[in-house]
């Protein structure tokens, strides 16, 4: 960035960016912490395994013709009755548990990412408006935020879910369940984004560049989006990482409770719910493996979020 080459190609710029990244404080703190590196690897393996599950999974669990009920309730491969092709055993319908976990994690991650995006969109917009405009709008938005914050997010998500169910026709529940879930989780998590953004906006509002922009007559909406937003987005990234962990847990909880994704597209929570029915008959692998996958995923994301918070915090450098 220091010098501009007249002949700089796109490729050259990319190399430059990579070099800058390798030189940055964030990358240095990453290299220093083995726990974070392990967490990063775990998260990447899970993300890759989940998103490419249609190609990577050893069995296609959605293809009924490949299922064999004779293979139902197989324990993991290292047990006496286990089969080599089913590494983590099979479920009640003879589906490979490892494959269902990969497909299930895909659903969990899609819901998690989309709901965090929704929460960021709502929270950042309201935070910008609230902080920049101030006055009655600000106090109204913040009162609503206070009230919502006094109720636990899981309860708010359950309520939105129940609310949506009650005024959608029953036949559309299954179809729309995924979107309802994203809406419920997203709308229950916007408050922390709004509060953080509002706080930073109120600081930025007094800076010279904002005053200058105002003096030359730029529209307030334009100032908010083009000038203020890039300066307040840093902390949002950190909260979003931690919110992803919360969103994944909330999705799993709602699906476990039976008000989340439909059984036709099981997520990790649904798998645990189904496995739970067979806990007493000794088929523990149907519950424990999806559960372990969920915990490892959330733990990895939590560790990454904690690290990112410290790495981006100038006070701790």
């Amino acid at each position: 960035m220091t010098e501009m080459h007249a002949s700089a190609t796109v490729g050259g710029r990319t190399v430059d960016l990579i070099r800058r990244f390798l030189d940055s404080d964030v990358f240095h703190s990453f290299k220093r912490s083995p726990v974070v590196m392990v967490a990063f690897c775990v998260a990447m393996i899970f993300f890759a395994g989940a998103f490419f599950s249609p190609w990577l999974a050893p069995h296609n669990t959605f293809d009924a013709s490949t299922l064999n009920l004779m293979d139902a309730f197989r324990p993991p491969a290292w047990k006496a009755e286990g089969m080599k092709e089913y590494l983590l055993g099979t479920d009640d319908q003879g589906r490979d548990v490892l494959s269902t976990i990969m497909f299930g994690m895909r659903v969990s991650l899609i819901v998690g990412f989309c709901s965090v995006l929704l929460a960021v969109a709502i929270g950042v917009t309201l935070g910008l408006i609230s902080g920049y405009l101030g006055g009655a709008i600000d106090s109204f938005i913040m009162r609503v935020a206070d009230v919502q914050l006094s109720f636990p997010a899981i309860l708010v998500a359950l309520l939105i879910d129940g609310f949506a169910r009650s005024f959608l026709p029953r036949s559309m529940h299954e179809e729309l369940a995924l979107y309802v879930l994203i809406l419920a989780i997203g709308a229950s998590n916007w408050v922390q984004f709004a509060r953080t953004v509002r706080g930073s906006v109120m600081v930025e509002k007094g800076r010279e560049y904002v005053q200058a922009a105002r003096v030359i007559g730029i529209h307030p909406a334009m100032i908010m989006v083009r000038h203020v937003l890039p300066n307040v987005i840093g902390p949002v990234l950190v909260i979003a990482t931690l919110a992803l962990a919360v969103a994944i847990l909330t999705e799993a909880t709602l699906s476990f409770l039976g008000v989340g994704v439909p059984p036709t597209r099981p997520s990790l929570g649904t798998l645990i719910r189904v496995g739970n029915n067979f806990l007493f008959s000794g088929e523990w692998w149907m519950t424990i493996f999806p559960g372990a996958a969920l915990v490892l995923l959330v733990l990895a994301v939590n560790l990454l979020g904690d690290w990112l918070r410290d790495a981006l915090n100038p006070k701790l450098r």
Partner: protein
Amino acid sequence: MLAFIVRRLIQSIIVMLAVAFIAFSLFQFTGDPINNMVGPEASAETRQLLRERLGLDKPFPIQFLHFVGNVVQGEFGVSYRLGMKVEDILVQRLPATLELVAVAALLALAVGVPLGVYTGLHRYGAVSRLMLTLSLVGISLPTFLIGILLILVFAVWLGWLPSFGRGKVVSIGWWTTNFTSWDGFRSIILPAITLSLFQMTLIMRLVRAEMLEVLRTDYIKFARARGLTNRAVNFGHALKNTLVPVITITGLQIGALIAFAIITETVFQWPGMGLLFLQAIQFVDIPVMSSYLVLVAFLFVIINLVVDLLYYAVDPRLRIDRAAVGAH
């Protein structure tokens, strides 16, 4: 002080009205309630008669006032699913949830506070580090998974404790309790541990952070300089000053316990309000859903109000600040 209380009361009433409005609009958006009550073959005349008797022909604001009036008198309507009066069901379910929440809160305090003090005092000890790591894992473990694991170990593999239901309960008036029989007491152990684990880690981390803060202050150094015993300094001076935030957070977390009881009650098939609410959502049983909403919001508002007042009463600094602001 009086102005503060009045302002908080008004705020609480506004929140309750907003919640009542949401609960009321649940009925409005779910189609004609008359269709739920009579069959499709009912004549238009019967429908009209029923509509008038229920006050459904009145304008929206009047209906809302009517709804609020009913709720204030403790009338919540009739459950679509169970065909019983909702207030009767709630009274029947309330003791189960409240007992579970109370035991979980006490357990979280009884374990969380000592662990917090210990990890605060022995900051770099091996046990403290282990505890902090465990608490991070605890936060990443969802409540329902903790419940399932406890059931798997203590009910399925070891067979020591029951895995579902309240066991044998004894009625005292309208209240039913778990604590007067051995069977009932055994039944509450696993659900209470499940519900309290997250709060336990929260309280432990809070007490630890507060202890670290307080131990740095001058009056602790002075107490040590005076030659007081470690015990007197740590517990008499340090711990005492950490308790204000602990009381507030614990109070506010009781709300969270009531919410998370929904999950715990589902895992353990505990016949409380949470399980009732969840079944209501699955069956789109609007009267039960809206009553639960109003009741829980009421509990939350009361808890918030009491905690605010307690805080005000316990922390003298708050009073001075308020007075100074008021004088301007």
